[in-house]
């Protein structure tokens, strides 16, 4: 049986390959240039993305290529200041997870509970928000988990929510 760690390692090694990047054209699949994250940072981001938004009956954050997208985003969008802040956030999360018992789902649950109960741990909340943003605006997130219409073509001001279904991705 494959352990979670092995799954994650497999995903990490596949980053830069088409599988993890298929959702995002602008993640420039196939390019071999150096990424933003160190191997350890990428492992952490991958763990967070997979734990916060796992594959269920719909694709999860890994299926949607979220870690690779975040890597590309910080490489090409972020200023040096934002890059440093983001690295600081990841370092903070790592230390907190260690405090809760290491890089595992139980520790993350404790961190998440503490973050929202105490209006605290903004390093974690910030990264979690970014993971959600990248996921829900990805093609699988927007069209399989939620729904999205490029050209609605009509305005329905109010309909029973059951008729509309899930949250609009946008």
């Amino acid at each position, binding site marked *: 049986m494959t352990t979670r760690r092995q799954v994650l390692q497999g995903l990490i090694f596949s980053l830069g390959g088409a599988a993890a990047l298929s*959702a*995002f*054209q*602008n993640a420039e699949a196939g390019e071999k240039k150096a990424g933003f994250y160190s191997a350890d940072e990428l492992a952490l981001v991958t763990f967070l993305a997979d*734990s*916060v*938004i*796992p594959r*269920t009956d*719909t694709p999860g954050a890994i299926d949607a290529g979220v870690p690779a997208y975040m890597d*590309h*985003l910080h490489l*090409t*969008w*972020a*200023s040096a*200041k*934002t890059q440093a802040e983001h690295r600081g956030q990841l370092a903070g999360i790592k230390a907190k997870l260690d405090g809760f018992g290491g890089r595992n*789902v139980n520790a*993350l*649950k404790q961190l*998440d*509970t503490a*973050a*929202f*109960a105490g209006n605290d741990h903004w390093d974690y*909340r910030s990264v*979690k*928000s*970014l*993971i*959600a*943003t*990248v996921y*829900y*605006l990805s*093609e699988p997130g*927007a069209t399989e*988990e*939620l729904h*999205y*219409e*490029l*050209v*609605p*073509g*009509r*305005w*329905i*001001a*109010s*309909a*029973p*929510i059951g008729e*509309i279904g*899930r*949250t*609009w*991705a*946008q």
Partner: protein
Amino acid sequence: MNDEFDAIVIGSGMSGGWAAKELCEKGLKVLVLERGRELSVEKDYSDMLSPWELPNLDRINEEELKTHYPVAAESVGYALHETTKQFWVKEDEQPYETPEGAPFEWLRGYHSGGKSLMWSRQSYRFGPQDFESNKKDGHGVDWPIRYDDLAPWYDHVERFAGISGNRDGIPSLPDGQFQPAFELTQPEKAFAERVNKAFPSRHVIAARVAHLTQPTQEQMDLGRGPCQVRNHCHRGCSFGAYFSSVSATLPAARRTENLTLISYAIVQAIDYDPVSKRATGVRVMDANTRETKTYTARIIFLNASTVASTLIMLNSKSEAFPTGLANSSGQLGHNLMDHFGGAGAGGELPEFDAYYHAGRRPGGIYVANYANITEHDKPFLRGYGFQGGSSRPGWTGNRPGIGEDFKQANRTPKPWTIGINAFGDMLPNFRNNISLHPTKTDKWGMPVAVIDCRLGENELKMMQAASKDALAMMKAAGCTNIWSSEDRGVTMESLTSPGNKIHEMGTARMGRDPKTSVLNGWCQSHDVPNLFITDGSCMPSSAVQNPSLTYMALTARAANHAAELVKAGVL
């Protein structure tokens, strides 16, 4: 190219497009001078991209943003993205100055269509009271026209542009020639009813927006189609569903075969002949080659947008007009106004959570001004309107939980929220002005603008009242989890800076007396009769309504008058 023109229109934006269309349709040969490039729907519009096709979440590289768009990033972050940045001026390449402690946010679009590509499409008529306010309270000069003078021209421009709205029957916010409005959501309907019940003189209506909902044959013949309810308007609209010069007036002008449009034509000055007392030519520098050329015509329409038109006039100095063309009154460059905000409130209406919407409506609600119209207990002059709307925030990462529970929670949208924000009427004040920098020039040799515009005590008192009103309306509507500008209080520092609402106006005002105004009631220079200015510069007061529709009506009216004068041989 044939260099014989009857009319030159400087600028191809909101008002310039209208001047070109009306003059061309009257049979005049028209030259439009546009300082930027000609936009291409295929290359410049990004409205057909899905969220996952937008690079980097549509965020502009942070260093690039800081270098090129520091003002716009703060002012119009909602519209400035990686896929829309081509519509916004790179500020470091087009400098201007403001005094320490008195910012002015000058937001510009230098391309065919100008800011008509980037506007928020809110379209309201001024009411009868708005043409009388200056005379009534003594600020500024009396408008030389009244509502009835402009009403047929509002009809004219609304029929062509296409405005969706309801006939609401509010005398101070007159109805027009509307296409069907976008229906209000359940929370908006409840808000409207409850506010009106608690405050019978306050009317909450569907926003009137320049979107086709039932296009006419004329609109379809121009290649325009109905709004597809995408709310991607700031990326351009491939359907031509919202009004812009690019979708509507320039194509209409082109089909007459009377239009010539030259891109990259930066106007430096307008020449004046003291013998004939006419403007004789327009001096232009090519933005790329720096070659200069003078174009001539019988009449000139100046529609470069308020600040730029003012700079051109101030830079057109001669012995006859040493302080700028047509400035015998000394008012040119003065009385600069903009709408301003800094008051608002919002709250949740979870009682309607059994309902959800489909489509992304490009407008919301509007609260017509009542201050000093139907409510007279105010410690300030004039008033304010509110723009707003409801929404149901969707997914968020800012919620507790991980894993399947987190995904499940985000499948249901959060409770309905509703919010409103005030737009205030700024008093005309001579001290608020635009001038030419004495030494600094831009890369084409034009003196850069120095803009000194400040809000005053009346504006502060007005926004403080608007803030209290917004909160009271949220309470009256039964909202929960209310937030408002009352939370921190409204101070001079918390008001939006002039320029922020992108409704700058007033620096070449119309008036009855040549001694105190630049233009007459036809937006025609008192001093130089073949010169017309019909962008925001011509406005004697700002009212509270978004002004583009009024610029359109004033322009169409002035252009038809000018064409008659040309045909009669007067000009």
